[in-house]
């Protein structure tokens, strides 16, 4: 809150800057609203409570991945491994369930497996000085390979109703028993994945804005050498970001596999690209130092709504790819133009 008052004290020049800073987010938000409007006109089923909740559910996985990627991208790095880590951690959780662990500890194992992949990325990048692009590309292959090897490339199913609760359950679901004995859903409830996404987004925003590690994440991406000279532990900061990205990919993997109630070792292919796109559409800069969680959330919803809306309007998956490709390029182009002034 003090931020706002200081802003006004600082005078006109600052206000212009703020305006420029917020412009990207505002334009992304506007895009989002236009999409919603357009799809609602195109297909009446789009603008309904049920479809809204479906979108929430579908976006939560990309949203979780996007949050981790935002942290990594702000440090000036990239994480291409998250899609594979999604699969690996889902598989690990399922195997833990099969091994007899209760669902919650089993899922924690999966998240830890994701965090371990992220920590490994961080280790390779900070100790061996391998560029993030290459290091995480390697992990993309390693994690996918491990997931396929562990399962023999066959899905693990029959994980029990408990395993499906995280992905399929909902808060405030209202069901009414009808006289004929069949239940009728009055309100489908807020899906757990959406609630999880909200909690993680708030926590990550807090981390980036109010905690020292967040400040150091921005500083590292802004000018790594300056951060080092100022006494920031740059290597530790990067380790932290990559480990977080891995852990969130692990969480996303659990959400996804729980929704399917099956651990699919081949799930999550190319999810990293959607997540990167979400961050970039939301204003994160691949050269580091810039990015916000709120922006990435808008970006994730733009992608989610685009996918959902195009689906509902009967557009093929191939065309969807093409459209999203252009949206990503367009978003970055707008950003470039804005920075050139």
């Amino acid at each position, binding site marked *: 809150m*003090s*931020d706002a008052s*200081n*802003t006004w004290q*600082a*005078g006109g*020049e*600052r206000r212009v*800057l703020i305006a420029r800073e917020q412009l990207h987010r505002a334009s992304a938000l506007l895009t989002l609203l236009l999409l919603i409007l357009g799809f609602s006109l195109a297909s009446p089923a789009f603008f309904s409570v049920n479809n809204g909740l479906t979108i929430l559910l579908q976006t939560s996985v990309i949203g979780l991945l996007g949050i981790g990627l935002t942290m990594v991208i702000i440090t000036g790095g990239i994480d291409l491994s998250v899609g594979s880590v999604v699969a690996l951690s889902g598989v690990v959780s399922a195997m833990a369930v099969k091994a007899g662990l209760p669902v919650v500890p089993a899922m924690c194992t999966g998240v830890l497996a994701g965090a371990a992949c992220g920590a490994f990325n961080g280790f390779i990048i900070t100790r061996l000085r391998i560029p993030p692009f290459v290091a995480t590309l390697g992990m993309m292959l390693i994690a996918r390979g491990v997931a396929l090897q562990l399962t023999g490339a066959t899905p693990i199913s029959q994980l029990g109703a408990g395993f499906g609760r995280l992905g399929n359950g909902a808060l405030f679901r209202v069901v009414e028993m009808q006289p004929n004995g069949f239940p009728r859903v009055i309100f489908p409830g807020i899906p757990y994945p959406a609630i999880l996404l909200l909690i993680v987004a708030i926590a990550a925003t807090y981390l980036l*804005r*109010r*905690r*020292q590690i*967040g*400040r*150091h994440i*921005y*500083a590292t*991406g*802004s*000018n790594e*050498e*300056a*951060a*080092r*000279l*100022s*006494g*920031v532990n740059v290597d530790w900061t990067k380790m932290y970001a990559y480990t977080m990205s891995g852990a969130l990919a692990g969480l996303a993997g659990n959400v996804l596999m729980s929704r399917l109630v099956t651990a699919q070792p081949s799930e999550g292919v190319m999810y990293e690209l959607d997540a990167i796109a979400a961050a970039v559409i939301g204003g994160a800069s691949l050269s580091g*130092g*810039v990015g916000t969680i709120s922006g990435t959330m808008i970006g994730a919803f733009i992608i989610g709504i685009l996918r959902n809306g195009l689906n509902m309007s009967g557009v093929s998956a191939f065309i969807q790819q093409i459209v999203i490709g252009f949206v990503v390029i367009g978003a970055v182009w707008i950003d470039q133009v804005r920075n050139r002034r």
Partner: protein
Amino acid sequence: MSQHPLVEMINIEKHFGGIRAVDGVSLNVYPGEVVGVLGHNGAGKSCLMRILSGAMLPSGGEIRVNGAPVRFAEPNDARAHGIETIYQTLALANHLDAPSNLFLGRELKTRFGNLDDARMLREARTVLARLNPNFKNLRDPVSSLSGGQRQVIAIARAIYFDTKVLIMDEPTAALGPSETAMVADLIRKLQADGIGIFLVSHDMHDVFELCDRIVVMNKGRVVGAHPIGEVTKDDVLSLIVKGALPDDWTARNLEAAQ
């Protein structure tokens, strides 16, 4: 100045492959002393200063603080001994604002460990006002500030904390005349507080105005170390350019006494 030096650098070496950027240099500073470090471009001044600030590991030699040998593996080690540096490159994170840069790596926190941005802003406002009363746009990312304002932030960062030795690598390169004068005042004030200062500068006027002693480097070696009263500007220029004093040199202050 009878106490022992605040810091001593003894026989410092720094090699980059075949290049000897710093070649057996010894240097010290006493409390309340300003030591000018001079030399042509690429003479090795910045390397030497970066070694003392922990930003660069020496290939050889020893550093002593208050007579005790130390090893600086990273900038925090040097800072822990009260050695603060204004880097020639300024070392600012462009996307962060002035207070965030001032406190980078040493953020002020609230009781709950959150960043105390309000207090950092207040403190930054006070210390920046000492150097430049016109500094108002504190919350802007420093990339949008002028070169002089950026330099002022770098200076403020070095003097805000408990400083015993201050390394200034061309601190006034981007400053206008009034800011330069303010920095000169600041140096005198810090000197009076007993802080030892290394001043790297190409500006002869500043050097003769502020320094008690000068050390001239040429191609990585020290070619001259003199109390300021002993030499003239021409002598110093000759040291910087030729690496030697003029052939007919005699100490300026002795000359005057004759």
